[in-house]
């Protein structure tokens, strides 16, 4: 095969690749305040569980309904509804990434990623916590 035709093929490949990348509808990381501005848009909201407000979850009532409040360091606060079971580590989590959409004053969440001490034992600070308990 000629070098020129290889180059053409690779050029076509790169063009297809660029088009494909363009087709991916990336979401964004947001704070509670910016998520509220983007009503109805799918975002990744970085926040913390508000431990001063109640977590509502009763598997006997409805295993697919969890409601809690999230806050962030910028002072934002919102109710979060997650139509799934409560992640067992929720109360222990240090930080949560909530994927979903802000609908009015409620964040409709379809996925929760937790940052938990136990999962992150490579983290030195977390490891130090385990020895200070003794």
């Amino acid at each position, binding site marked *: *095969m*000629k070098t020129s035709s290889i180059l053409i*093929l*690779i050029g076509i*490949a790169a063009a*297809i*690749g660029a088009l*494909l*990348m363009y*087709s*991916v*509808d*990336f*979401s*964004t*990381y947001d704070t509670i305040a910016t998520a509220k501005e983007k009503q109805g848009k*799918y*975002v*990744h909201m970085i926040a913390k569980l508000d431990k001063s407000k109640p977590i509502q979850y*009763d*598997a*006997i*009532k*409805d*295993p*697919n*309904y969890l*409601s809690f409040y999230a806050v962030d360091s910028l002072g934002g606060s919102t109710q979060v*509804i997650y*139509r*799934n*079971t*409560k992640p*067992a*580590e929720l*109360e*222990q989590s240090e930080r949560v*990434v909530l*994927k979903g959409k802000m*609908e*009015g004053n*409620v964040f*409709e969440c*379809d996925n929760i*990623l937790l*940052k*938990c*001490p*136990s999962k*992150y*034992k*490579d*983290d*030195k600070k977390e*490891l*130090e916590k*385990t*020895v*200070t308990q*003794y």
Partner: protein
Amino acid sequence: MTYENEHLLPGQIGHFFVLLAFVASIISAISFFKASAVKSDIEKKKWLHLARSIFVIEFLSLLTVFAFVYFICSQHYFEYLYSYKHSSKELEPKYLLACIWEGQEGSFLLWSIWHCVLGSIVIFTAKKREAAVMTVVNVAQFFLILMLLGIYFSGTRIGSNPFMLTRNELAGPIFSQSNYLDLIKDGVGLNVLLRNYWMVIHPPVLFLGFASTIIPVGFAYSSLRSKDWGSWIKPVLPWVLFSGLVLGTGIMMGGKWAYESLSFGGYWAWDPVENASLVPWIILVAGLHCMAIYKSTGNALRAAYLFTILTYLFVLYSTFLTRTGILGDTSVHSFTEAGMAMNVLIGIYVLGITVPVLFMFFKNYSKIPSLEKEENISSREFWMFIGALILFLSAIFIISVTSLPVYNKIFGSNLADPQDREFTYNKVLVLVAIIIGLLTGAIQYFKYKKTGKKYILSKLGWPLGISIFLITLIALFYPIEYFKKGYGFLAAIYLALFATIFSVVANAFYIKTVLKGNLKASGAAIAHLGFTMMIAGMLISSGNKEVISDNSKTGVFIPFDKDPTGRSTENPMENLTLIKGIPTPLGKYTVTYLKDSASPKENNRTFYSLHFVNKDSATGKVLENFILSPDSYRMKDNNLSSNPDTRHYLSHDVFTYVSTISVPNKDADTASFKIHELSVGDSVFFDKGYIVLNGIQKNPNNERYQFQPTDTALAADITLYSKEGTSYKANPALKIQNHQIDFLNDTIITQNVYLQFAGIAQGNKFKIGIKESKKLTDFITLKAYVFPYINLVWAGLIIMAAGFLVSLLQRAKAAKWMAILSICFVILALTYLFLFANA
């Protein structure tokens, strides 16, 4: 201060051998380089001899290091941070190996040991290329062992070695006491998610795959240095096939692990860590096809070089992605921030090997021979090259999307994963599957250089006809019901299914009609058959995957909580609550949560015994009757980790896992009656169903109450309808005697419900109290899926692995008995692991 009870000797010896291995890797690299550079044969022999001896020392040192890491972990010497972090006393012995490669240091150690094993084979087999290949291997070893070094260089620690002491690494008040070891009760231990036999098998296989990709780079380097262009292809082919076999199997072992023991609900989630291991494999396969083209026609040599180097580049890039913590929030199983120094080291490793070889490649690019003639469109090589290019393209697409966190880091943007990550990949790769299916099916029949139209048509007629027939059967009798992404995507799934079925049939025909059943020559056809069968299995099992615990389908459960946004939700309700002892419909099954039992071996692990019955609705005959025992781990800090249990059938799997468990409530029954005011005929909902107040009787005289007409007593006639569809009668009563109200409560034990007639309200209404005791309720919530024809995926993988192996043995000219033996072994081992180990 002197500390009590520390065992410092093993660590000192271990660290010494790390340093020895490091120095040996440098000397070995230099002497192998010298051996490849010097002209005189006597000199060459001398250098080679030295290099080999030093390499043996390096190998033995690393094995010793491994033995000592194992020792400190198995002895629970928590004075060592590595042992404290990864081992614990409750850990079963079989997980000791797993806890070694859980950590960064252990897995680098494993990787470097594999380098040594493969390097030893190179020394015995590579002949004149030995010195050059081993130079590259030892340079890689230098970088890997550098990361295990743990010595200070002008204030910065280079690498981290597994023998660091806990008291030096962590700050804590206990370390000011000389007896701190007595205070540390137990190590942190292996993450419970990883306590699985796959954690023992999957990492070594995957790392062997990763480690093996250095060898082809070594061969490419040797030819670039000696300017002896095409002759490296023949000896490198067995190595590339080996990498394809081991890496491919290792990746799917990860998929099988995720499927059977992690609650991801599937075998592939397009997680960045999964993608990072898949991409090098795809490029490797693309390179393999270019090598095959070169061997037969002399074309595509440049692409073979490029893909070989890029494979290794992407192996290292994926190491970079998963080890530096850059993936952070996007991956469920990423490592965390390893520290700046470590990140720089990994970065240097990525660039240190690939950049020089890439530079040599581009410098010599114009000298590498290529045929300056157009390929015929009816030639096999033309389409093989197109296929390789498509594979390469899809690899680039996957890694481009996966690298999102890297763009964020570089450009400071805040982009995140798309809403439906899986669909983002699937919608592109389903098209790739169509093309790859058609190419792998048809191109085998093409001949190199030029093929007659008639020949192709005559050969492809039958496979085409059969696969059209099969896809029609599927469409009619077992249609793919994946409507949620629209008809366009559904059509693409059908096309991909057709293409892959066509490929399976065409390759089977090819083995029979063209190769006349000569298995020795049919490695490629077998591998293609297996690969496309695996893809077909993925299309069917994922396309028709069914959530049977979907509440909205089973209709068991109506959410009573009003949605605060006031709109109806379309989210699937995938979790189903099972109350102990109460049969609940689940798909075509009725499932009863019978009991839970603690694991005899492991603390905090509970098995939930779930009885599944499937009855024929017309005759009542029991069609299926089995017990599944998914389990859950409750960790010290209340974290819950679930392991699924799966009922395997030839045609489908019933897959269940526990998503929530009831927390044993040690407090007394603190629930109180909730009073509702009802008129006769009214109903009121409560958590487990609803009650209807049928009527009120004055001074009833029946089986239950024998009131006299002179009494002042009222009894309520209540029917309770539970959410399981059962109904119960209850008669709480109220009696006034001596100016005192006497409540005669009624209970419905199976429902843990207490009913009270609490009084009379205004407007002909009665006060009925409902109390639900939470004390007695044991429940779990369950997710359950049916994966149809999942066995096609595993069977396809095994066949593909066998195909790789057949080609490998043929290219390596293995003796017949050895070939048969190793094929049998691999097929048996994989069949056991993938189909029977967990069944």
